[in-house]
C-alpha cells in the first residue's frame, strides 16, 4: 500500500514510452517490427546503445555528462584497425586500451583541471577529433576480412547480457554504485562521509572510456572499417536513451539502473522503426532531435533547481 504511492508518473513514463514506440511502429509498418530479420537489426542497434548507456549511467549518477564518447569510439576503432594489421587478435586490447587512456584523460580534465564535465568533455572531444584526423590521415582504414566473422549474434547477445548484469550489480549492490549516487546527491556531504569523490568521478570516466573502446572494436567487426564517421550517432543515441529511460540530469539517488535498459530499447526500436518506414538520414536526425528535446523537457527536474542554492 505504501509502496503504491511512490509509483508515480515519472516511474511509469519510461515503460509507457517503450510500449508506445513499439505499438506505433508495429501499426505504421503493418507488423514488420517483430519479423525475425528485423529483430536481428534491432539487436544490432541496441547493442551499441545499451552498452554505451550502461556505462553512461554511472557518469550521470555522479551528476556529470560526457560529450566525447562518439569520438572516443572512433579513435578506439581506428587503433583497433591499426593493430589488426599486425595481428587481428591485437585489435581487442588496442581498442580497449585506447578507450581507457582517453577516458583517463577525460577524468584528468574534469577532476584535476577542475573543469565542469560538459565543458571539459567538449574540449577533449575536439582534441580527440584532432587525434582521429591525424591517425586516419583523411582516409579510412580497413580490418582484415577474417575479423568480420567474429561478430556473431550469439557473441553480441552474450556481451549485452553480461554488461547489463555486471552494470546492474555494480550500480545497485556495491559500495561503488552507491557512492556514485551519493556524489551526485551532494558531493560535499559525500566527501565528509568518507567517499573519495575524486576517485569515484575519475573511475566513471575511465570505465566509460574502456566500454566505449569495446564498442569501437565491435564497430570495426561490424563494418570492417574505421573512418571519421565511426561513432557519429553514439552520443545522441545514448543521451536520448538515458533521458527517455528517466535518468535525471541532476544525478543522485533518483538514478535507477533500469532506466538505462528501458531507455536503450526505446531508442533502438525508435531508430529501427524509422528505418523501416523508409525515412532518410536527415529526417531521422530531425525526429531524433525532437525526441531528445521532448525527453529533456520531461525529465528535467525543475524542483531540483530550487535546491541547488
Amino acid at each position, binding site marked *: 500500500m*505504501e509502496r503504491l*504511492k*511512490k509509483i508515480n508518473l515519472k516511474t511509469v513514463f519510461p515503460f509507457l514510452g517503450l510500449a508506445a514506440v513499439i505499438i506505433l511502429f508495429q501499426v505504421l509498418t503493418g507488423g514488420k517490427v517483430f519479423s525475425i530479420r528485423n529483430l536481428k537489426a534491432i539487436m544490432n542497434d541496441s547493442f551499441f546503445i545499451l552498452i554505451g548507456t550502461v556505462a553512461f549511467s554511472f557518469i550521470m549518477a555522479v551528476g556529470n555528462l560526457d560529450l566525447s564518447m562518439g569520438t572516443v569510439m572512433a579513435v578506439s576503432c581506428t587503433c583497433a584497425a591499426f593493430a589488426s594489421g599486425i595481428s587481428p587478435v591485437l585489435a581487442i586490447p588496442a581498442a580497449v586500451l585506447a578507450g581507457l587512456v582517453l577516458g583517463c584523460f577525460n577524468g584528468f580534465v574534469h577532476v584535476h583541471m577542475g573543469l565542469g564535465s560538459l565543458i571539459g568533455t567538449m574540449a577533449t572531444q575536439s582534441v580527440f577529433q584532432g587525434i582521429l584526423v591525424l591517425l586516419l590521415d583523411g582516409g579510412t582504414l580497413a580490418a582484415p576480412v577474417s575479423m568480420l566473422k567474429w561478430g556473431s549474434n550469439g557473441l553480441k547477445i552474450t556481451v549485452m547480457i553480461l554488461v547489463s548484469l555486471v552494470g546492474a*550489480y555494480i550500480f*545497485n*549492490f*556495491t*559500495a561503488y554504485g*552507491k*557512492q556514485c*549516487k*551519493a556524489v551526485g*546527491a*551532494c558531493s*560535499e*556531504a*559525500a*566527501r*565528509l*562521509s*568518507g*567517499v*573519495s569523490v575524486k576517485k569515484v568521478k575519475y573511475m566513471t570516466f575511465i570505465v566509460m572510456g574502456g566500454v566505449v573502446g569495446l564498442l569501437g572494436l565491435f564497430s570495426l567487426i561490424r563494418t570492417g572499417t574505421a573512418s571519421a564517421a565511426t561513432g557519429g550517432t553514439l552520443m545522441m543515441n545514448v543521451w536520448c536513451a538515458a533521458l527517455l529511460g528517466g535518468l535525471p540530469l541532476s544525478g*543522485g*539517488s*533518483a538514478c535507477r539502473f533500469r532506466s538505462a535498459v528501458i531507455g536503450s530499447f526505446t531508442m533502438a526500436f525508435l531508430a529501427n522503426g524509422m528505418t523501416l518506414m523508409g525515412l532518410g538520414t536527415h529526417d531521422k536526425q530531425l525526429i531524433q532531435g525532437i525526441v531528445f528535446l521532448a525527453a529533456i523537457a520531461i525529465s528535467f527536474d525543475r524542483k*531540483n533547481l530550487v*535546491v541547488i*542554492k
Partner: protein
Amino acid sequence: MENAKIILTAENMTKSFGITRALKGVPLQLKSGEVLGLIGENGSGKSTLTSIIAGIQPADAGEIRLNGAPYGAQSSVEACRQGICMILQEKATFDHLSVAQNIFVGDEKRFGRFGILDIKRMNREAEDILKSIGITGLEVKKKIAECSFEEGKLVELARAASTDPQILIVDETTTALSQNGRNILYRMMEKMKRENKSIIFISHDIDEMMEKCDRLMVLRDGDYIDTIGRGDFSAARIKKLMVGREIADNYYREDHTCSYDKEVVLKLEEVSTEHLHNINLELHRGEILGFSGLADSGMHDIGKAAFGAIRLSSGRVCDKDGETVKNPQAAMHKKIAYIGKNRDQESLFINSPIKDNISVASLKKLSKNTFIPPRKEREFVLEWAERLEVKMQDIDQYVMELSGGNKQKVALAKWLGFGADIFILDCPTRGIDIGVKASIYRLMENLKAQGKSILLISEEMPEVIGMSDRIIVLKDGVQSGEFERDETLSEHALINCMV
C-alpha cells in the same frame, strides 16, 4: 499586556502530507507587542504551522485573520508585504550572491536605475542595516558561499530587519548562533516589542523560552495542547505538556569529576587554518573534550581539521600511533566520525531517502565480497533510525520531508551506526527536542564508559559544561582558557575567556 490588541488569529489549522497529519486543527492567537513561544517535540508541527502563516505553504483547511481581516498570503513575498516575515530553521541564503544581494533578494528593483543595478547604493544600505541591528565585521560584498553558517543566518536576520515586519517568526534559529549572534537576535526582538510589534519564537531550549516569551503555546503530534502565561511558567510543567508524561530531570552527566585514560587518541600539533592559529591539543581515551567560543573563535574549524576535512596551513593532526589524518577517508579508517554543523549542505543528502543517508558511511562494513545485501542494508538503517527515534513514514522517505530535529537525528544515526572510536560532534543536539536530547546525552555517557572519546563543539554552554571532562575556550583562533570538570564551573567563567 493582558488586554493588548490581538493582531493575528488562526483557527482550525489543518495540514497533511500524505499519511502524515502534521497539523490537526490548531488555533493560534498573537497579541501585539508580545513574544509567543511555540514549543513541542520534533515533528510536532511547529515549522509547518508557522510556515503556513508566513505564506510558504498553504494549509489544507483553517482560517487566518490579520488585524481582523481575512489573510491568506500565497507566497513569502506576499506575506512580507503584509508585514509577516519568517526566519527559517534551514539555510535560506543564496551561495552565489553577496551578503548585500542576499539581504535585498526579491527587492532589487529598489536599486534599479535605468535598468542597471546600483550596487554601490545597495551595498551602502546593506551596511546600514547590518549596523542598525549590531552586526559588525561582516563584509557586504562577500559571497555567502564564503561565509560561515552563522553569518548566513545573521544575513537572514538582516533581511528580515530590512522589511521592518509587524510579525517576525523565528524558527529554531538560536541553536545555529553563538552568544554574540544570539544577543543580536534578542536585541532585535526587544526593539520590536518596544515598537508594539509581535514575535513568534520557536526553540527547544526551555530556559531560553521561559526567559524570552510572554506566553508559551504547546503542540504535540499536530495537536494543540495548551497555552500558558508567563506567570505560570515552570520547566517541569512545560516538559510534561510537551511529552505528555513526567520526564526525569537528569539531563546532563550526574558525576562531577573529570575522568579519562592517559592514552592520547587524537592529537592536534600546531594546527593553523584560516581561522585557527597554532592550536595544540590532545584528546584522551574515554574523554569528552568540550569546545566553547564565539562565532569568530574558529571552534568549528577544530572539528573539520581533526577530521582531515580542511586544508591546514601548517601543523598536523595525528592519531594514537602518530599517523597523520590526511583526509576524511583516512580519518574514518582510524574510526573517527564527524557530524558537521551545516546539516543540509554537509551532513545530509536531503534529496535522497533516509536509507541512503544512514548507510553511506557504513558501506564497507555492510558489504561482503563487494556485495551489499539489500535486506541487510535495510535492517541496519531501520535499527539505527529507530534507536534515534527518527519520526518518519519509512526509511524510503526523503530526508527533505523530515522536520528539522529529525534530520539531525538521521545525521547522528549515520555516524552512530558507523561505530567510531572518536566522535567529533559539532552542535550535535541542534534543533533536537528535550526528550531525544536527554537520550543523546545518555548515549554520549555510554560511549565514554566504553572508552570512546568525544570532541564536543557546541554553542550551548550548559551542554558543554554539563557533559565535558575538559573544556577549551577559544578566542580569535587561539586557546584562551582551559577548564576541568567541576561542580562550580559557571558560564560566566567561560564567557570571561571568550570576550
